[in-house]
């Protein structure tokens, strides 16, 4: 092959790859544009707003770190909402543990397992508002099923005001949240279980490993990616479960079920403090980034990466 022919061939390859790149960007452009318009720009504007004093009818004034100072040193509600948010995040592993148990159950050879899978999964596609209304009635002090059952079984003398009690309100909301997510967790874990080769269990059995050891040494390590996925989705779902809390308790009683996302909404739309709400939002965003980074590190550091053959 002469040098001229080689150069031509390179040009053709280059032209082809340029055309290909243009085509790819052309397909990506609408999505990227929407992402830029509806995610990146509002996020950047939100950051700018957090350093300003602004209300819908007044021009913005730069105030530096005043909003952050108020949030960190002068706002008890922020701290209460932050702790409640952590409480809700911490509940994700409980849901995952329950879902793991259920997944193992419906992965075994019990009769009617398909039916059980469907029943467990059905909570997930339900609208969160519907879930919140269902559980609000379930927890109702006067006509709720849970109180009725507890009293019928003589477990309690007086009905428990689940959603009106400082002690019970947050656990009640967490229970509803876990119930809704169970189906999702179960499906993810179930798909993970189905990818574990059966011969590993056979080999372990031959080596004398009992069921517990097989679970701890084979099932759990190989399920790690699925469990991590459940944790990240569950955590994000929990901290953004605005509709569930808004409908079930509205953040009350007092601030017992206030989480950052409900507090941000109230600051913005009830109190018209969009500037301060922006500062809380930035903090919330940093918190989410931090937790996701930590979770990613714990799972080996390459979660979400596409492995090439």
């Amino acid at each position: 092959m002469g040098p001229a022919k080689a150069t031509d061939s390179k040009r053709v390859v280059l032209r082809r790859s340029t055309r290909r790149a243009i085509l790819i960007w052309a397909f990506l452009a609408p999505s990227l544009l929407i992402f830029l318009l509806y995610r990146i720009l509002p996020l950047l504007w939100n950051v700018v707003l957090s350093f300003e004093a602004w209300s819908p009818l007044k021009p913005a004034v730069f105030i530096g770190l005043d909003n952050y100072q108020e949030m960190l040193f002068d706002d008890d509600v922020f701290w209460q909402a932050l702790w409640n948010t952590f409480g809700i995040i911490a509940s994700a592993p409980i849901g995952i543990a329950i879902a793991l148990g259920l997944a193992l159950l419906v992965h075994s050879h019990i009769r009617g397992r398909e039916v059980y899978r469907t029943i467990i999964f059905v909570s997930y596609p339900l609208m969160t508002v519907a879930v919140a209304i269902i559980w609000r009635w379930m927890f109702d002090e006067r006509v709720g099923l849970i109180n009725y059952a507890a009293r019928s079984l003589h477990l309690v003398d007086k009905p428990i005001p689940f959603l009106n009690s400082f002690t019970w309100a947050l656990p009640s909301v967490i229970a509803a949240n876990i119930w809704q997510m169970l189906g999702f967790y179960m499906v993810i874990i179930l798909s993970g279980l189905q990818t574990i080769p059966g011969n590993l269990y056979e080999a372990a059995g031959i080596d004398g490993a009992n069921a517990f050891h097989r679970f701890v040494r084979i099932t759990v390590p190989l399920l790690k990616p699925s469990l991590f996925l459940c944790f990240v989705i569950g955590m994000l779902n929990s901290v953004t479960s605005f509709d569930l809390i808004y409908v079930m308790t509205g953040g009350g009683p007092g601030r017992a079920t206030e989480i950052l996302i409900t507090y941000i909404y109230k600051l913005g739309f009830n109190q018209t403090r969009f500037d301060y709400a922006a500062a809380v939002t930035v903090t919330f965003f940093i918190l989410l980034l931090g937790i996701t980074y930590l979770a990613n590190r714990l799972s080996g550091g390459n979660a979400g990466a596409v492995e090439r053959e």
Partner: protein
Amino acid sequence: MDRRSVLKMGAAAAAATLSQPAILRAQSSKKLSILTWNIADQEALFKEEFAEFKAAHPGVEIEWLDKKGPDLPAFYQTQLVAGTAPDIVDLQGEIWVEWAANGALLDLTPYLQADAEFAKLFNPDYMSGWVYEKKNYLIPFYVAKTLLFYNKLMFKDAGLSGPPASFDDIIKFSEAMAKAEKTGFITLNFDWLYWPLMKMNGIELLTPDLKKPAFNTPEAVAVVDRLAKATASGAINKIAWTGRWVEPNGAFSSGTVGMMQAHSASYFFVKGQGRWINRDTLGAAQAPGNWSTPTNHGFAISKSSKNPDIAFALIKLMTGNKWATKFAGIRRVLTANIEADKACLASLKDEDPLAHAVLETQLEHTDKMTGNWPLANDAQIKDAFWPELQNGLLGRKDAKTALADAERAVTRVLRRS
């Protein structure tokens, strides 16, 4: 056809096309938009009103939009920011003050001064509730204030003959009626509707200049303490401090609560749910001291309105004698329009004596309304005060600590403002 002719025809066609939107724009400059709050059920009436208005004002188009309870404030705010606020907006409670103070609403005082006859149509006490810094921002659409509903059957069982005359009575009566599932008292708590309980004990939220908290007094500590103890004992229903609308009204309509402090709109809710309710079993009275908290609806005009005069004319029509009377009759509400309310009460006297008794309370002691302070930061103060008071009422903190914490929180809001 030569090139010049083609160009000429093209230019003429373009000019014709461009001139058409100009005409349309001129027409649409008479377009009025009106946003109402949770009253979509009155569509037929509004349509009649709009038809009459359009007949009197040819070329005016009216666009009507209704938003449900919690949606309206957020919606209106976004419209304000976008510069597309509706010309007329129906606002409830004290939410209007913040928007008036921030320049979103038009001062209607000049319109009322220019049309004194129209201003005279309304109850002056209700009218004065729409004043901020000596300017009137709203015209009453429909009004309601709190009263004390009481369950005569439970009163009879407890040996009580009539409604309570003092705060002491409220507590004592509640204790007398509380047994097993039954509780003695409940109140609605949103929009300061519980404040008559404080006011009847001489407790003020803020100093007269509205600049400092005034509620953290030994008297207030004693009141909160008594309310908390009565709540813990079951004399006062806990839902009083935790529910919003459905829960307390539902509890009272179940027939297991002796008294309920709520606004007149609650009557229609509890009547619809409580089979026990009739003229012999439900009583309607003023709260002790005759104090009440209003939750009124009024029409305001957005300052950004391009047609404020036409907007005011529409408000005039909708709140004037003819349509206010019709609206009050259909909806069984009072409108603060003196003639319309008289007609409504007269028709209810025989038709529905119980509703008549309830609505009658709304026109009594209108000079003793509380909880309707003209505060530009009302929502923020409410949000700072209420959760701390809740802590005290539900026993999470003792009364003294709860009020001290509430004072700190409210002071912070006032200082920031």
